[in-house]
């Protein structure tokens, strides 16, 4: 695994994109096909199934390091990464000139643990740790625990692979989509010889929009642009090919079984149809809040009750494949005509709906419409250039999301916890409260929105103003007021405050406000009444 460890170190030591691509391309050039395939799998979040629980790993690591478990756990809270904590505390062994095994060897080693009894697993894991250096142990642990972030996006990986193979990036991105695992394919099959059309379930890479930072005037002629409401659901791709239906979420997850409502489209849509749209909770002519959808995402079984409570529809905004033809290179305007014709061709009930265009003549008028987007349970607007092709990944220029300004509330920080990964050792995870008479009622957590400098300042402050410690969580003296921004608000029985926020984050540190000027629970309830559901 030395070569993979070297790759890892190289990726970890630089923030420069070109250096990362070069290191990856170099690795692809040297590694075996099996290692290449596993590297692609790991970088596209296809990790081997977990065969050892983290509870056992913690116990074994503490034991092997002769540390009490509590001390190991405390260390973990501070390091913020289990695989790293284990690698750091294990005693350094004199690594004799061991035979170096490739990445794929260790992946198979870990997979084989699944069939073993606990005692044998223990022996195998110890044997592995004892023949590795720190960096290899870290990688080995990461392979077991998952969540391997190498600071390399799928986009970068594809670029490096393209450099290595000479295959065009877009084509590679498409080949790497969909339902494969290193066990079901080979590097040759997946990357070199692949014909995406062979796999009828294979989705197209999603085209993702950037947020519009400026005013839309900079985009030019309003007539060149198509506007739609932006819906708060799950981005999805619906595929009908050879009489079968597949639904993919943006996270490249096959979610067909989670949404049985779409099965009726299998017969209604002709073979060779791929739609891009939003999976939305919808009932009796109304879009429901994302909260409703959330209640069914995590469930293994979609019960009748759930189907009744949180039914979904697909609001389609693009047609990527029609009659088996890839339409992505055609201008949006033409795809749109075909999409509208398709949706008008028969009665799809509520299940398949068109994402309507928003009519406007100038930008000022559109800005006005955006202001009121929340009334329609929309998050704002999408702007798409009518002449644009359907591109892959996040690309600037043709598609923009123009969201409504978030809702905000001024809240008091009452708990703090250290972050993970890049923010390990800094207090970055906070719980906020609103006032209720003299009391403070916690209502949300928020993790992001401050600068590193502000996080450092607040970290220093937390150290000096801790009231109580609850494991990794500290309660602090209520002192600081922060403006919390969020996209939506819903009633919740799970929270003390009775509300749940959508995408809460810190928008500003209100150093100008004492806690007496923070918002109250009544303010929160009023927002709930106005915007909640």
């Amino acid at each position, binding site marked *: 695994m030395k070569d993979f460890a070297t790759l890892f170190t190289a990726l*970890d*030591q*630089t*923030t420069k994109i070109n250096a990362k691509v070069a290191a990856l391309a170099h690795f692809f050039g040297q590694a075996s096909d099996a290692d290449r395939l596993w590297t692609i799998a790991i970088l596209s979040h296809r990790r081997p199934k977990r065969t050892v629980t983290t509870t056992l790993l913690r116990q074994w690591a503490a034991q092997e*390091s002769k*540390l*009490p478990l*509590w*001390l*190991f756990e*405390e*260390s973990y809270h*501070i*390091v*913020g*990464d289990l695989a*790293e*904590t284990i690698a*750091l*505390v294990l005693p*350094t062994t004199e690594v004799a000139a061991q035979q170096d095994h490739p990445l794929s060897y260790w992946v198979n080693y870990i997979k084989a643990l699944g069939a073993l009894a606990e005692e044998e697993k223990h022996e195998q894991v110890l044997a592995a740790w004892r023949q590795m250096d720190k960096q290899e142990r870290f990688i080995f642990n990461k392979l077991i625990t998952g969540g391997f972030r190498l*600071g390399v996006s799928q986009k970068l990986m594809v670029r490096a692979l393209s450099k290595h193979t000479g295959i065009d990036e877009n084509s590679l991105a498409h080949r790497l989509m969909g339902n494969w695992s290193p066990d079901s394919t080979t590097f040759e099959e997946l990357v070199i010889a692949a014909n995406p059309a062979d796999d009828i379930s294979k989705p197209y890479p999603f085209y993702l929009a950037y947020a519009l930072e400026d005013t839309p005037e900079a985009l030019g002629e309003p007539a060149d642009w198509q506007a739609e409401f932006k819906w708060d659901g799950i981005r999805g791709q619906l595929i009908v090919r050879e009489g079968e239906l597949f639904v993919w979420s943006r996270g490249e997850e096959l979610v067909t079984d989670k949404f049985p409502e779409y099965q009726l489209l299998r017969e209604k849509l002709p073979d060779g149809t791929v739609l891009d749209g939003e999976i939305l909770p919808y009932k009796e002519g109304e879009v429901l809040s994302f909260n409703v959808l959330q209640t069914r995402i995590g469930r293994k079984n979609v019960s009748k009750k759930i189907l009744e409570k949180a039914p979904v529809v697909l609001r389609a905004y693009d047609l990527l494949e029609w009659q088996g033809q890839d339409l992505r290179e055609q201008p949006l305007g033409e795809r749109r005509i075909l999409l509208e014709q398709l949706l008008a061709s028969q009665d799809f009930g509520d299940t398949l709906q068109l994402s309507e265009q928003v009519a406007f003549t100038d930008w000022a008028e559109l800005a006005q419409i955006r202001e009121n987007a929340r009334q329609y349970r929309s998050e704002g607007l999408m702007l798409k250039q009518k002449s644009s092709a359907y591109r892959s990944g996040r690309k600037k220029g043709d598609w923009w999301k123009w969201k409504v300004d978030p809702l905000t509330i001024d809240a008091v920080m009452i708990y703090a916890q250290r*972050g*993970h*990964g*890049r*923010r*390990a*050792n*800094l*207090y970055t995870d906070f719980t906020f409260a609103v006032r209720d008479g003299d009391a403070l009622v916690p209502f949300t957590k928020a993790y992001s929105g401050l600068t*590193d400098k502000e996080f*450092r300042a607040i*970290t*220093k402050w937390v*150290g*000096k103003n801790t009231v109580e*410690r609850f494991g990794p969580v500290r309660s602090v003296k209520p002192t600081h007021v922060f403006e919390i921004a969020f996209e939506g608000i819903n009633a919740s029985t799970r929270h003390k405050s009775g509300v749940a926020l959508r995408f809460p984050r810190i928008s500003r540190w209100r150093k100008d406000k004492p806690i007496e000027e923070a918002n109250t629970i009544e303010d929160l309830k009023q927002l709930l009444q106005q915007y909640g559901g």
Partner: protein
Amino acid sequence: MALLEFTKKGIFCPQANVYIDPWRPVDRALITHGHADHSRFGHKSYLCTTTAKPVIRYRLGPIAVQTIDYGKEIDINGVKVSFHPAGHIIGSAQIRLEYKGEVWCVSGDYKIENDGLSEAFEPVKCHAFITESTFGLPVYTWQDQATIFKQINDWWRQNKAEGKVSLLTAYALGKAQRLIYHLDESIGTIYTHGAVENVNEVIRQQGIHIKPTTRVRQAIKSKAFIGNIIIAPPGAVGSPWVRRFKPLSVGMASGWMSLRGARRRRAADRGFVLSDHADWEGLNQAIAETGAERVFVTHGYTEIFKRWLRDQGYDAHIVATEFEGELSEMNSTEGEEQEA
């Protein structure tokens, strides 16, 4: 009456009427070493080791400083006081106090490994030991410095081969001189930031050899830095001062670089795990060697370290001080500044 008390002004010995590294102005201060959180302005008189004095004088100006050699004992109102090497920086000391057969020792900051420049750490037998715990977690274990300096010199060499300037950050007093001591000057010229060079000059004047270094001056052409190395305080990174060095590779040498999260948070290209504080093993070894039964933990991961020491059978306590403690640990982006 305990031999040492913990007061708002600092660690106090009532019998001798002296404070150790006090953070509020007092009449008589015993100083473990010259870093700013231990050696502060405003005391009427200072006592430190002979080798620590020049830097303290340089930093604090015309103050009343007396000096004492390591291992030499003085009597202050019946309390026998002596200074013993702490291995942290040049002149750094642990301070031993003995009264009626009871011995206490204040460690200040210390490290076990002999860095070749500071007077090497010596364990002091005592009944009560006041220790730092900056890196008092088992995740912090240092490799020997030869390994780390090889990494640093290799990095410099690599940068030179790629036509880059190397900028290595380190606290101006202590770490900077340690780095210079171990850099391979056959690779190129060692340049220094003014804050580092000022300290170098003070130390050279006291007769300690430090390799030739060149102060970065406006007059030096930017091209001259290519292939060479610059030692600067962490604060210099991100300031306009570094703009003239390009193409640039930035390295940071600090114990905090042990953690991947801390490394990634910095804008540095490379992090080298090098500290002037004891690691986990070092802290435990030092405490064991004192033979002390009572241990007071000052700054660092105090809560956790205290609990660990109690597990090990020590009568351990936390002492709140204004030494840069857990705060600095977390607020470590500027690296050595807080670690020092």
